[in-house]
């Protein structure tokens, strides 16, 4: 029992939780910025950029807008951050001492939704029209991208007869896994809010979207949550490919390589496309998303 607690705390705080999740997430975010800069013919930021951005925001004074409940203003990013840390601790990365039980996939899906929900509430709470438009768009987009996301995960669960994430990480690579990874990747574009689906934080039209009134420490927490979300969602695709390997170092290497490839593909898409309108994004996910879901479920049941 005692050992279980130590393992759980290690998983929450170090691997794959807060510390390594943040470092990995910052690395992936830096790579996105650098890669997009290189595609545009720029040099791009140095690799420590997201780290210093976070600490600078911590060091700034926080202004609470007039008429906003201060408790709510601070609580929303904190709840989002805590949920995403718990979600990361469930991820069966190689070498994780983490918590694993039958049904942890369902818990993971709930926890992934929490920061999104907090974002939407934050948009409405801060009483800015831009933030409210952003929150509406984010809420609509959530309904859209969850279709291929949940479809792919459910199809895998049906195929492996288990709702346990550790089974996912141990499964051999098959056509169904690859199709599921593609469906997860399609959902990832909207989850990370990169270009064709950067609708909720559209810089040129609604200033900074949901976080327009956030500043200082709460904004830093939102940025940290975004970094952790990045490493979690990219890691979720990566663990589908580590099954066939036995050595832990090989697993770690494959995990890392797949994560980097996923981020590069995401940014090629982001740099090569323009922002869609929210109704077009919705239509995209409800036609191609359904097609991808049907394909994944069929592959999972038949092949």
């Amino acid at each position: 029992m005692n050992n279980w607690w130590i393992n759980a705390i290690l998983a929450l705080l170090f691997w794959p939780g807060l510390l390594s999740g943040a470092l990995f997430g910052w690395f992936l975010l830096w790579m996105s910025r650098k890669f997009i800069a290189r595609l545009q013919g720029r040099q791009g930021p140095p690799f420590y950029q997201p780290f210093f951005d976070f600490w600078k925001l911590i060091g700034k004074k926080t202004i609470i807008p007039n008429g906003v409940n201060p408790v709510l203003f601070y609580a929303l990013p904190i709840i989002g951050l805590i949920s995403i840390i718990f979600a990361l601790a469930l991820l069966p990365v190689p070498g994780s001492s983490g918590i694993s039980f039958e049904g942890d996939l369902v818990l993971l899906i709930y926890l992934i939704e929490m920061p999104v929900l907090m974002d939407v509430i934050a948009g409405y709470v801060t009483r800015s029209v831009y933030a409210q438009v952003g929150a509406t768009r984010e809420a609509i987009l959530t309904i859209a991208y969850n279709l291929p996301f949940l479809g792919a995960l459910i199809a895998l669960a049906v195929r492996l007869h288990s709702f346990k994430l550790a089974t996912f990480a141990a499964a051999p690579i098959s056509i169904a896994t690859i199709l599921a990874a593609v469906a997860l990747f399609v959902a990832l574009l909207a989850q990370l809010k990169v270009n064709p689906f950067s609708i909720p934080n559209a810089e040129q039209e609604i200033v900074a979207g949901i976080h327009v009134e956030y500043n200082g420490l709460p904004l830093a927490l939102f940025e940290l949550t975004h970094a952790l979300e990045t490493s979690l969602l990219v890691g979720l695709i990566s663990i589908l490919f580590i099954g066939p390997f036995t050595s832990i170092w090989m697993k770690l290497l494959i995990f890392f390589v797949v994560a980097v490839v996923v981020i590069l593909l995401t940014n090629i898409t982001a740099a090569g496309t323009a922002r869609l309108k929210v109704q077009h994004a919705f239509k995209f996910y409800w036609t191609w998303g359904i097609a991808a879901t049907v394909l994944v479920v069929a592959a999972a049941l038949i092949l």
Partner: protein
Amino acid sequence: MSNIFSRLIQTSRRRSPWVYRINAGSCNGCDIEVAPCFSPRYDGEQIGAVLQGSPKHTDILLISGPITLRTQEMVKDVYQQIPSPKAVIALGSCPASGNVFHGSPTIVGSAEAVIPVDLYVPGCPPRPQAILEAIQKASVMLEKGETRSQREVSHE
């Protein structure tokens, strides 16, 4: 321990200057010169500078134009919305002296009369290299606590 943290935060102030620009009656010349700072040729992202859309996310305020009477309240408002520590850079000759508009009854003529300015970039308009150098200098001032917003707070 708290020493390490304050050192870390000071360094990150230098490494991550986020910029917001405000046009206070400028002819748009200075604003056109700001855009190339973030283009492939000059690429301000190398020093961590990013253009922000919201004053709440800002460290450095770029202000251009001779501060017309109609904009001075907005300039004050935007300045107060920026969380401290913050630095202000006046772009071009207009916010320094009024430039060709000097003596006009519709301008304040000096940014100094409205908000505390830390750095002036001379030129009409200034070149992007000069603007980037000012951003770099302002971020060093933020690190050392030398901006006027930081000094005036510590005096109180």
